[in-house]
């Protein structure tokens, strides 16, 4: 089952929920097939992500994935965040990836066996990708 304690806990995290009023970047992402939506707020200092928050609704997987992603990218440079993104995508699509880099994101490893939930996991990451482009 993909509903591990880790994922259940992270799905309920409230720490990263909210707006950043002076955000450098605001990006909306959505999952067409289920109506899940996320608005990602990024505060950049030069090349570095110094804060991030989100609003929106979604399933356990997308909520947990968003929280873990935000936790991981805060403090990283754009390039580092994109590197993380590439590895997270590769993991979920069953391709090769760097385990060490992903850290707690590895808790989503099993989701790759549920193709219909892959989109839920990817929702925040795809939104991040658009935000950093």
């Amino acid at each position: 089952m993909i509903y591990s304690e880790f994922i259940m806990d992270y799905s309920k995290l409230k720490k990263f929920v909210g707006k950043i009023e002076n955000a450098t970047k605001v990006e909306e992402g959505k999952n067409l097939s289920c109506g899940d939506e996320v608005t990602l707020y990024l505060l950049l200092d030069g090349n570095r992500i110094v804060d991030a928050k989100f609003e929106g609704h979604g399933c356990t997987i997308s909520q947990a994935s968003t929280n873990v992603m935000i936790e991981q990218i805060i403090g990283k440079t754009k390039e580092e965040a994109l590197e993380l993104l590439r590895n997270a995508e590769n993991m979920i699509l069953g391709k090769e990836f760097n385990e060490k880099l992903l850290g707690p994101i590895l808790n989503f490893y099993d989701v790759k066996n549920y193709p219909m939930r892959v989109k839920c996991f990817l929702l925040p990451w795809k939104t991040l990708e658009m935000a950093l482009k």
Partner: protein
Amino acid sequence: MRSGVWSDKEWECIKSEIPVLDRTVNGKRLVYLDNAASTLKAKSVIDKMADFYLYHYSNIHRAVHTLASEATMAYEQAREKIGRFLNAQLGEVVFTSGTTMGINLLVNSFVRSGLLREGDVVLLTQVEHHANLVPWLRASKFHGFRIEYIQADEKGVILKEAIEKATSVKPKVVSITAQSNVTGQELPLNFVREAFPNAILIIDGAQLIPHKKIDVKALDIDFLVFSAHKMLGPTGVGVLYGKRELLERMEPFLYGGEMIDRVTFEDATFNVPPYKFEAGTPHIAGVVGFGYTLELLENLDLEKIEKQVEILSRYLIDSLSRLDFLELYGPLDDSHRSLVSFNVQGVHPHDVSHVLDQMFGVATRSGHHCAQPLMSILKRGSKIDFPNSTVRASVYFYNTFDDIDTLVEGLKFVRKMFSE
């Protein structure tokens, strides 16, 4: 526990026809409650289609050789069966690739034929599937006709008063579903016909026809569309019924082989209906297979199928109504058929469906069910934090009380799991 209309012998037959019912999913017996999206398939139909493909197949209509004769006869016999089923003439039965294609055909052909012009009004309901909404919406942008809606109430129900009220917009075309794929409501088609005696009446039969016959003459319907895959049939096949006189006046939708009369380098004239609407090589094996499907359903007895779906629907609604952590949508009365949409308080529909599948082998559907605008109506009426989507459980004649009991058990588990 089975219960319902089937005798032991009939039930044996049904079980052997739908072999996937013996399959396990994640270690559990498969409980398939996603019939409104598409039904399971029957062994005798698939076997006959395979035999057709391998031993009697060729392109149709245009050749005199033996295989072509066999294939053409099989194809046209399917048309005859469907004509009898609907109480329509042969020239009124057009094969399409599905409901979606049928409605797109009508919208485009109406515009090209001048049957819909700037200023005309098309009346829909607020519970339409995207298939009976988006084609009209986009064509109205390009061609300037207007769209009005019969309003749904907070539970997504279309009341007779709302239908009556809509008569004031004087629609040229009324296009409505016979049964909503979200609320399960069967719409009062007779009442609609009487309310709009002069409008062109289009019925989206995708949800209703699989379990309740529609007689196009008795209801005085102008057009009816539905899909084979929602009634045990193959994918890629649908039917468009149209009144002969209207089909004759209409410009074709797809152009190509077999639908023409005479073609020059300057212009073309067209064949008679239904051929005029069947351009190119059709889905021959699918149409033939749909004919076999209808035969099977008729042998099982269409009235018994209707009755069984009614019994199961009632049991489903009653069972879910007893769960106080659910919010149910739709009328929930006798007009409510074959499917129920609901939410588990505080749990996202995807999570509900996922756990039901993984832990109980129960297949349900979660999402907006191709009816996004209706979701915003349900949200308004909702007493919970509505997630813009619902879970939907839908039955067909091969389901059992046991299936529904398993669903209930699963939902209780879901509730518990996510409230810890």
